[in-house]
């Protein structure tokens, strides 16, 4: 009896999708469009965060060492710095290494006459990376107070700006994602309500003939799930394809802005979309039918 009913529900659901072909199409398309937009946002947001994080993580502090320190004192200084809790990595850059870099960047003539160790005007320095990029200003502050460190530089303005932009991007992205999820739900609920509305007569007749509420509701819920799943599958496949293309394209065209590779994000995304589709479909029809079951 139970199995018979389940089969009946599933059969009814499929028959109903066929019978209401046009409305099924409308529902699926709304779900698909909403989830497509949502999915695109999800990907854009993920990548925006990724890129911001990437850029942020490249920020480092340069601390110049005072002229008069001995090699031992410098080593002590290095230990002091690396023991700061926020610091991840400290690299010592000697005077001569710094001069070498300058030579590479500016050309021979610039360093001409300075190549001798004694005449080199550049100081020794440390390149410091923090565990969390946000800590850069904090660490810079601490470094300035350490005796033996002459000067601290981290392109203050730029870093702070970058962090602010990063958090703005994340904040905007999140707001948009949540907003879109809510509006998608809203659109879908509306559409399902309309389709169920158009079938209110059908539901009422079923009641008059003595169908129990769940006997009426199940086919609608299953129908909703099927439509929701189809509606989720379409943007899933589309995004799978399009994102793959986007990654390829970005690799050849803007390789300095690395998109997250497909295999890292698409699986999660598709799971999310299918889950959302199912929930939307099931809940949407169950709730919409309820209105007419009260009669």
């Amino acid at each position: 009896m139970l199995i018979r009913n389940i089969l009946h529900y599933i059969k009814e659901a499929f028959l109903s999708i066929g019978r209401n072909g046009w409305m099924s199409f409308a529902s699926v398309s709304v779900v698909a469009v909403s989830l497509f937009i949502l999915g695109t946002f999800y990907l854009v947001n993920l990548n925006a965060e990724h890129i911001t994080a990437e850029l942020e993580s490249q920020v480092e502090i340069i601390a110049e060492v005072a002229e008069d320190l001995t090699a031992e004192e410098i080593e002590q200084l290095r230990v002091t710095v690396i023991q700061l809790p926020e610091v991840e990595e400290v690299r010592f850059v000697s005077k001569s290494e710094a001069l070498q870099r300058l030579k590479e960047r500016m050309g021979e003539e610039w360093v001409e006459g300075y190549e001798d160790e004694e005449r080199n005007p550049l100081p020794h320095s440390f390149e410091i990376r923090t565990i969390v990029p946000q800590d850069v200003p904090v660490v810079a502050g601490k470094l300035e107070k350490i005796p033996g460190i002459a000067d601290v530089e981290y392109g203050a303005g730029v870093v702070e700006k970058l962090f602010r932009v990063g958090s703005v991007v994340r904040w905007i992205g999140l707001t948009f994602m949540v907003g879109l999820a809510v509006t998608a739900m809203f659109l879908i609920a509306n559409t399902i309500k309309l389709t169920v509305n158009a079938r209110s007569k059908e539901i009422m007749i079923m009641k008059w003939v003595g169908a129990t509420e769940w006997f009426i509701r199940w086919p609608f819920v299953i129908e909703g799930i099927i439509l929701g799943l189809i509606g989720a599958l379409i943007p899933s496949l589309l995004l799978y394809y399009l994102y793959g293309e986007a990654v390829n394209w970005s690799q050849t065209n803007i390789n300095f802005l690395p998109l997250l590779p497909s295999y890292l994000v698409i699986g999660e995304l598709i799971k999310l979309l299918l889950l959302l589709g199912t929930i939307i479909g099931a809940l949407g029809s169950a709730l919409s039918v309820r209105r007419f079951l009260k009669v």
Partner: protein
Amino acid sequence: MIEIRHVNMVYPNGVRALNDINLNIDRNEFVFVVGASGAGKSTLIRLLGLEFPPTAGKIKVLGKELTRLRRREIPAYRRSIGVVFQDFRLLENRCVYDNVAFAMQVVGARPRDIRRRVPEALEAVGLLDKARMKPQELSGGEQQRVCLARAIVNNPSLIIADEPTGNLDPKTSMEIIEHLKAINIRGTTVIMATHDREIVNALKKRVIALENGRIIRDEQRGEYS
């Protein structure tokens, strides 16, 4: 079998459709409900079919007090009776066969029984050859007969019918009534609202006459008027 006590029905818009109705109908009776248009016949039928509760009074059918039924008991009650609606109420996107079969699926009948009983019921109303047509493809009288087939297919112990021959010619009407009579003889109670003077006068069954929501006549072997 049916006990109606001091029943009043006032619609939300203030129309008093039934006014202090008292009735006893026994198992196996065949009852005609007659009266002018707007007298309250359909309202009485719809109360028995539990479309809405009365604004006052008590209705007891098959030992159950309808006003006291809990929400989840309502479907079971509806399934235990067969109703012919004045406005047919057929599922538009299902064929005649499925419309009738649906009433059996709803009670959880076995597919084998459904395949046997549905054609029998369609045969009884003379529509077996139109089993695969949709309601919109039928004439008014044919739709009415589908509704009748759906009402009888579960062999209910009570059939309530609202003008089941309103759209039928006298000959077809008589055939339908003969069928209802046969069902009635086999033990089913039949309550039927009608305007058909010929039928009422021919059958000589109990007649309840309504006027402005009141019972003005209740005769055991009555005539239309």
